[in-house]
């Protein structure tokens, strides 16, 4: 009997966890050893960050211990990857150990780099991680009117719809508190529309106009002037604020750049249809770590994990896997307190957004439960 092959998965976020669990369901331990390396303190369901600040959801439902999310038969190692050597086929971790592999899957996600925007730290608020989200909830409770600016510092960011989703819920929250007429909501966006995908942008733009939300497009944040409470753009515009809610800039992980797999922005150039890296048939990259032209979102990682788990399982079984990943993704995004739209799209098919509905909102409302009970376990 031959030794099992080893799939070495780097990252214990959505992409790494879903992939490892799916792969475990499709293979047995005699043929494949699955090793996951990650050091997350918590597995936070980030999409809930748009609801927690408005007390629409208790945060405890959105957080789990990462170790509890792996199915039986997966070797989860809590450590930090410090070097990836594709040529020599090994990975080194902070504790000093090295691991070789038959299949390497890089699912290291990305990180926030507020230092990329002068003036950001200590001034801008955001809802992209649990502690800042809880702090924002307190800040909003104290807010009594003025100018609120909502937007993102750069592209790409995780969950691209989140800034407009948050803006809709902010509008609703201020109305319910009776201070909407004392507040100007400004939405800033880097492109010449309010969202990347033009079909969705048109729909969102009409809703923004209906709700009196002021938009500033082609606004790429250059710096924040905290003294004068002003956010300045590369294009030479400025917007004044009393409260600034700005998604911090993102980059890929340092280890990716330091291992020579990407430039200083840290995103790995990946084969669009096979998710392989630089012509290597045994090195894959999924989730936020890639530079694929799809959303950096758990929903995209979920679809990529479905494709890749079948690809690897077929390879182990000796069967050629001819399917290609086509960029397919589905996600539900909020358009108000009781409404949402569900978007289906792929590389070649832009999403349609003809209507929003309460039933779509129900999908969004229950998404953390669906995620933790089924999706992350690999059974959906």
């Amino acid at each position, binding site marked *: 009997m031959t030794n099992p092959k080893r799939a070495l998965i780097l990252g214990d976020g959505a992409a790494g966890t879903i992939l490892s669990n799916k792969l475990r369901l499709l293979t047995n331990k005699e043929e494949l050893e699955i090793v996951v390396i990650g050091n997350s303190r918590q597995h936070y369901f980030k999409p809930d960050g748009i609801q927690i600040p408005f007390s629409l959801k208790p945060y405890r439902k959105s957080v789990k211990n990462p170790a509890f999310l792996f199915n039986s038969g997966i070797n989860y190692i809590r450590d930090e990857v410090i070097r990836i050597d594709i040529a020599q086929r090994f990975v080194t971790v902070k504790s000093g150990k090295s691991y070789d592999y038959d299949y390497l899957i890089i699912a290291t996600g990305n990180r926030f780099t507020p230092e990329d925007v002068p003036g950001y730290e200590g001034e801008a608020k955001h809802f992209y991680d649990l502690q800042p989200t809880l702090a924002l909830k307190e800040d909003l409770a104290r807010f009594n009117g003025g100018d609120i600016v909502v937007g993102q510092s750069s*592209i*790409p960011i995780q969950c691209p719809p989140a800034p407009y989703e948050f803006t809709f819920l902010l509008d609703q929250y201020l109305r319910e508190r009776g201070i909407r007429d004392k507040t100007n909501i400004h939405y800033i966006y*880097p492109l*010449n529309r309010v969202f990347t995908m033009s079909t969705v942008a048109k729909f969102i733009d009409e809703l923004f106009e209906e709700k009196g939300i002021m938009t500033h497009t*082609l606004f790429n944040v250059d710096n924040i002037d905290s003294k004068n409470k002003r956010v300045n753009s590369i*294009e*030479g515009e400025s917007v004044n604020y009393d409260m600034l809610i700005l998604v911090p800039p993102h980059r890929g992980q340092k280890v990716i750049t330091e291992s020579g797999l990407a430039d200083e922005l840290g995103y790995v150039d990946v084969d669009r249809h096979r998710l392989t890296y630089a012509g290597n048939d045994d090195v894959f990259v999924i989730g936020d770590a890639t530079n694929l*032209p799809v959303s950096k979102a758990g929903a995209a990682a979920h679809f990529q994990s479905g494709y890749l788990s079948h690809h690897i399982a077929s390879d182990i079984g000796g069967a050629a896997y001819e399917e290609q990943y086509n960029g397919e993704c589905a996600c539900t995004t909020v358009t108000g307190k009781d409404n949402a739209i569900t978007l289906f799209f792929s590389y070649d098919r832009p999403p349609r957004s003809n209507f929003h509905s309460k039933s779509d909102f129900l999908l969004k409302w229950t998404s953390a439960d669906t995620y933790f009970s089924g999706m992350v376990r690999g059974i959906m």
Partner: protein
Amino acid sequence: MAEETKPTKIIDARGSYCPGPLMELIKNYKQAKTGDVISLYSSDSGTKTDAPAWIKKSGNELIGVYDRDGYFEIVLKKTRQ
């Protein structure tokens, strides 16, 4: 393109979808000096309208938008300080 507008920098963003090419242009613009000419290659049709709109909004000079063989070339001169 005339000789005097020979690009200081060429960004080949072909194969990258919106907003990739525009973001590449903005990233390189931030690193460029006043007077530099940046040429952007893109196969994404959205760039043909998005990039000129950004160049105009940012107060720089759009030298031209050219249809090449299977892609577009958009040329910017950084005129702002």
